[in-house]
């Protein structure tokens, strides 16, 4: 298939380019790579103070609970937001050389995945620090993240495609993402916070919320996430990605010519 052939061919570029982006990000800042740790850590402290102290939440291990939320949300949010402008922002490249356009999304995903791994590192340190009992279920992190990556990839491809044609998509998307943010339960438990059937439904219908729910189960509560739900979202994510790829392959000629 064309996708895999080109993936093999351009993978090296994507990785190198992602490395360069990460290097450039810290090269000129005073605290250097410490920012990658400080940023999620400080956000966690703010949330923990506001919701833990002021709103008196009763969620166990609240700081870790939040940190997992931030880790998952940041990846999705940043990726989707940058995807809107991705074609326009890289016009100088794509108007002069052919590249499969999804490589742009992939490159961005690599950058964000690296930051996510740092975040995960902090979480593991905190799990040890708070003496959270972990078990074999922690291994579920990998399939969950795998599904999550494919889901985000699919979403971003579709957003990237429409971002070329719809000039104010950024504004609209900002509002939608804000809404999704509150329905995802970064700082609260979706299932328990809404009245009876709705919380349960929302937690399963909203993929970001569901995968967040799964990964919290695996990391924090040593419970097995629902493999059926995970498989369903895996299939949906694959379909989303396929739609995205089809859109992009069919329209990539026009992207170059759009000014």
């Amino acid at each position, binding site marked *: 298939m064309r996708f895999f052939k080109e993936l093999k061919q351009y993978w090296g*570029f994507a990785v*190198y380019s992602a490395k360069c982006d990460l*290097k450039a990000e810290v090269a000129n800042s005073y605290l250097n790579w410490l920012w990658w740790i400080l940023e999620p850590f400080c956000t966690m402290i703010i949330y923990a103070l506001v919701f833990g102290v002021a709103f008196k939440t009763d969620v166990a291990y609240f700081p870790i609970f939040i940190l997992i939320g931030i880790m998952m949300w940041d990846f999705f949010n940043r990726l989707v937001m940058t995807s809107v402008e991705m074609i326009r922002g890289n016009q100088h490249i*794509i*108007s002069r*050389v052919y590249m499969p356009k999804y490589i742009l999304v992939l490159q961005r995903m690599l950058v964000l995945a690296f930051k996510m791994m740092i975040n995960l590192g902090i979480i593991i340190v905190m799990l040890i620090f708070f003496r959270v009992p972990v078990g074999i279920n922690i291994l579920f992190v990998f399939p969950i993240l795998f599904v999550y990556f494919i889901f985000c990839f699919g979403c971003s491809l579709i957003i990237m495609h429409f971002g070329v044609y*719809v000039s104010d998509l950024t504004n609209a998307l900002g509002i939608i993402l804000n809404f999704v943010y509150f329905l995802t339960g970064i700082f609260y438990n979706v299932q328990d916070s809404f009245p009876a059937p709705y919380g349960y439904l929302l937690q399963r219908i909203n993929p970001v919320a569901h995968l967040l729910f799964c990964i919290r189960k695996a990391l924090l509560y040593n419970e097995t996430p629902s493999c059926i739900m995970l498989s369903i979202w895996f299939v949906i994510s694959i379909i989303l990605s396929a739609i995205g790829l089809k859109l992009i392959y069919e329209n990539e000629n026009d992207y170059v*010519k*759009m000014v």
Partner: protein
Amino acid sequence: MSKEISIEVKDVKIHYKMMKKFSIQRNLLKRDADKAEIFEAVKGVSFDVEKGEILGIIGKNGSGKSTLLRAIAGVFSPNEGEIDLKDHSVSLLSLGVGFKDTLSGRSNIFLSGMLLGFSEEEVKSKEADIIEFSELGKFIDMPVKTYSSGMYSKLAFAITSSLETDIMLVDEVLSVGDEHFQKKSLARMEELINDRNRTVVIVSHSIPTLRTLCNRVLWLDDGLIREIGDTETVLNSYETYMNQV
């Protein structure tokens, strides 16, 4: 004797959709559907280029020269017709492809090279040559945004001219930098172009450049071939035509 054909262009048509951007806000307020106007830049062009040949493309602004060249480079595929490169590697010689301003010159060598389809190892083997040719010295490890425009184009030229492909497409980038570097880059260009195994297509406005470099010239007028053939003949008729208008 039949010669090996390197580029085969058959009935190629390329159009641009002159589309106004769709906006949610605008479409909610008034429901006038934006109609896409179609502008045809290349209107059915066929020609072959033999291996080792140097073909010049001339024509006035907006005649579709650059569009055709970009289609041959694969930046976009033609709307109708076919371009067959017979599996040769191709590059459009344009300066600073994929440059990121915040990165060092060295990183940009790799980025640009890998984007043009070379592996990291291949770029690595050319790295020293590129740095030497660019004459940047210690500046190679400084961010590109600190470069002067001359330094920028020297580096860009060094990269594109060091990463050689079977087919080279040139769009008006024949000399850059100060006078010394201009001579050097022109010499490098001539060396690349005159390689018997390399097929070259040059788009230019400059009659003297094409006269010295090309074996054959194609005159593109308003998206169609007006004349194709021997360099002297085509350039002479082009010159006469241009003097009339």
